């Protein structure tokens, strides 16, 4: 399997461990990721605040680059996935708009056609029946007894009209992956809610409250670890967890993993290689559980 990999900005910046673990996981699964080095940022729904057409033009350019490579495009960030998909939907549903955007791209040598390649989150390619079979066959350290709570990230789920990811209210893709890895999924209400990251600069307390409520919900549901497909959710839930703890008095800290890290652990890759130690939150409980699985 070969894909064009849209890395996004954060996996090259504050969460480089996501990039590292993604490449290790891909290697172990025999997936060939070709990094899209000239693709620009998806805009994160922020560039479109200033100029919707600018955001769509940048994303049309990225999609066009994948088309040129004739490879399906994979993202490792719920935000990138959601925002790129939204642009794709807008362009595909409005020929006139697509033409306008292509006119802007023309001089750079790119043209977006649409319908030629598929745009998917890494979780999407693993959560198919074939993907799950493959995972099961490659698991060397089943994560038995590990209770894993998914945190999806808003952008892949909503607006569902423009996401085509999963059932927006009852997604199951991540949990299916956890099961394939031998872990026990934890279902809790907040798994489809917002992590608060987009407003951390504007309304810090509300942002931390949102993240805190989600963490409390996961903890109360018995989660050993929360796994997210979005590095922004990761920043909110992990990097800010000390502030959140102060605000919400959680009384318990919970480690947050990137999805590829969890997969890689089950595939037998050492947690150091996955740079899990770079996370702000690391708890003895989790380390112990991992040790028992022989994964630490």
């Amino acid at each position, binding site marked *: 399997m070969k894909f064009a990999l849209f890395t996004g900005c954060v996996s090259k910046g504050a969460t480089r461990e996501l990039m590292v673990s993604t490449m290790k996981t891909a290697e172990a699964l025999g997936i060939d990721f070709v990094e899209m080095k000239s693709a620009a940022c998806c*805009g994160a729904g*922020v560039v479109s605040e200033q100029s919707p057409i600018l955001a769509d033009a940048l994303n049309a350019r990225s999609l066009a680059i994948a088309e040129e490579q004739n490879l399906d495009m994979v993202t490792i960030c719920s935000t990138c996935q959601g925002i790129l998909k939204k642009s794709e939907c807008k362009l595909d549903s409005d020929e006139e708009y697509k033409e306008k955007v292509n006119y802007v791209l023309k001089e750079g040598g790119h043209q977006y056609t649409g319908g030629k390649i598929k745009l998917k989150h890494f979780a999407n390619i693993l959560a198919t029946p074939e993907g799950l079979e493959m995972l099961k066959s490659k698991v060397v350290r089943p994560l038995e007894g590990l209770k894993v709570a998914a945190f999806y990230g808003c952008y892949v789920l909503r607006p569902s009209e423009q996401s085509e990811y999963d059932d927006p209210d009852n997604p199951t893709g991540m949990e299916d992956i956890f099961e394939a890895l031998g872990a026990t999924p934890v279902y809790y209400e907040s798994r489809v809610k917002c992590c608060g990251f987009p407003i951390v*600069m504007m309304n810090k307390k509300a942002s931390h409250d949102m993240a805190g409520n989600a963490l409390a919900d996961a903890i109360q549901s018995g989660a050993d670890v929360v796994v997210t497909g979005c590095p922004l959710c990761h920043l909110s839930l992990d990097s800010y967890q000390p502030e959140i703890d102060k605000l919400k008095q959680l009384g318990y800290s919970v480690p947050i993993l990137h999805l590829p890290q969890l997969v890689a652990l089950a595939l037998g890759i050492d947690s150091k290689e996955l740079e899990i130690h770079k996370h702000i939150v690391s708890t003895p409980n989790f380390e112990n559980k991992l040790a028992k699985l022989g994964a630490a």
Partner: protein
Amino acid sequence: MATFKIKRYNPEIQREPYYEEFQYDPPEGTTLLDSLNEIKWTQDGTLSYRMSCRSAICGSCAVKANGHAILACQRQAEHVIKNDTVVLEPLGNMKPIKDLVVDFDPFWEKINKVTPYLKPEETKPEKERHQSQAQFSIIDDSSTCIMCGACYSDCNVLEVDDNFLGPAALAKAQRFVGDSRDKDRKARVEQLSEPGGIWDCTHCGECVERCPKPAEPFHRIKEIMTVALEEGVHNNNGARHALSFTKSIKHSGRLNENVLPVESIGFLGVKGIVNLVQDNLKMLMQGKVPTVIKDVFGLIPVGLRMLKKGKIPPIIHHSVDDVDDVKRIFKELKQ
């Protein structure tokens, strides 16, 4: 036969809410509201909820079904019944009065806060004001709002911050911000850029998902943001965050995470810094703690923590390949 598990609440009788199960088999082609009525009229007359038009236009009958806000009259019963069960609860983010009836007063108070009426030029033409079809299309979607409160119920920000105006009021605001006949555009976006306004929206998209009409508040909020930036209403973290973000993409094709937080709190361009100094001096003179100090101190712990773990983004910010093409696109679109 389906089970309707309904959250009951009647403080005249019992302080705490509880769930009660009703068995009812809805005929094909009937709505969830039809089911509620049949249950009320044939099983338990005390069951209370609001309803009126039953054609998805009056906005009375919004409730939560299986945890998410919907209009009861707009949904076929069979579509909301999952595994022979549907759980019905009052809307969220509002105080329950009785059963599925909630107190809408705070909702209306927020609508009132956005100056929810047109402020046109004083002089009236003899006939209608002209408005092009393109101008009409800007307010077409927001004007479909029926004030049902479904978005308000499921808004992730309102769950944690009462001060947020919320999706319905902001969609109503867009109805006027985008109206070519309104003369108060700038004043409106200034007011909407204050804390509790547009920049407090967390982009979760719940309101789009729950909206029973094309009003879809989140999209409208984004439209107001664009107008606010166009109108030069930049003196707040939200606007600066957007400007800094876009600037970073323009220069390198990629986000510079080291610069973004600092620019967002005010260190953005010469003019921005001048503003920042002026505003904060004013606060100091008024005996208030300048916000920039709070903001900077807010950034320090998380920054140090990340630094310690080696999580700080590279100090030297690398551009994407072929960044010139990215720059060209910005130029082409006059950004």
